[in-house]
């Protein structure tokens, strides 16, 4: 799971177009976790986990939901639902541009991370876009337009 997060972060943050679309300007290394978030929260607009605090205008946050065992095939292969929540405080139309870019980057992308670590190898067999969970709507609590999209990742952990 950790390796998959690393790979997805790498894909999303290494794309110049997506960085420009969400105003991701973070260049310095900051500590991991809450401390890191506080150190550069306004620049860190592509975030792992459901973290919406801070002063941002646009935000992409991605996280996995609980994995699902594929009972009819093998218990080792799991379906990992990846949810990407996109926020924009200025316009709801930007949400479509950002989501289209993310779909372009992640749909059918190679997330195989078996070469990253020696132990706990995770093989990914595909990342597919499943559709919108929420069409663009206004989040009153966060005072921002938002939408969520979902991907499905089929992965196997080598035991």
């Amino acid at each position, binding site marked *: 799971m950790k390796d998959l997060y690393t790979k997805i972060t790498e894909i999303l943050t290494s794309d110049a177009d997506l960085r420009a679309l969400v105003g991701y300007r973070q260049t310095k290394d900051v500590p991991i976790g809450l401390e890191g978030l506080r150190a550069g929260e306004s620049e860190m607009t592509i975030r792992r*986990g459901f973290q919406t605090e801070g002063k941002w205008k646009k935000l992409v946050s991605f*996280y996995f939901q609980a994995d*699902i065992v594929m009972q009819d095939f093998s218990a080792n292969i799991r379906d990992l639902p990846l949810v990407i929540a996109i926020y924009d405080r200025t316009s709801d139309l930007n949400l479509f541009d950002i989501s289209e870019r993310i779909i372009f980057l992640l749909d059918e992308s190679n997330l195989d991370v078996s070469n990253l670590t020696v132990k706990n190898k995770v093989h990914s067999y595909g990342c597919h876009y499943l559709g919108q*969970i929420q069409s663009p709507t206004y989040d009153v609590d966060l005072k921002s337009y938002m939408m969520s999209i*979902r991907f499905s990742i089929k992965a196997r952990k080598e035991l």
Partner: protein
Amino acid sequence: MSVEGFDNVINKMKLHEENIRSAVLSTMGAGMNEIADRAKFFLTENHHVKTGNLRRSVKGEARQVSLTVIEGQVGTNVHYAPYVEALPDGGYLYRSVQEKIPVVEMKIVTKLKALLK
């Protein structure tokens, strides 16, 4: 190359056309209710039930769209349902559909096999 006995299957299916349709429809309906029940279970398990409004509203149904298409639906009409579905510990509908669809498919196949015996 020729296939023997295929005409018999087609004739049998034509004979039982209406029976097959109603059997699939009822099995599908029961399957959709099973998925809805599973979704309610996940809502409760993940502590997403406060008033019970969302839990009560999750429903499943099957309907005949055309002569050859039977459609199953599970869902809710509560406006905040997508928020709960998108939460990190959400995914109650997706999870229940992914878990139960193979079971529903198997039930439909078993029913069809019994009818075409």
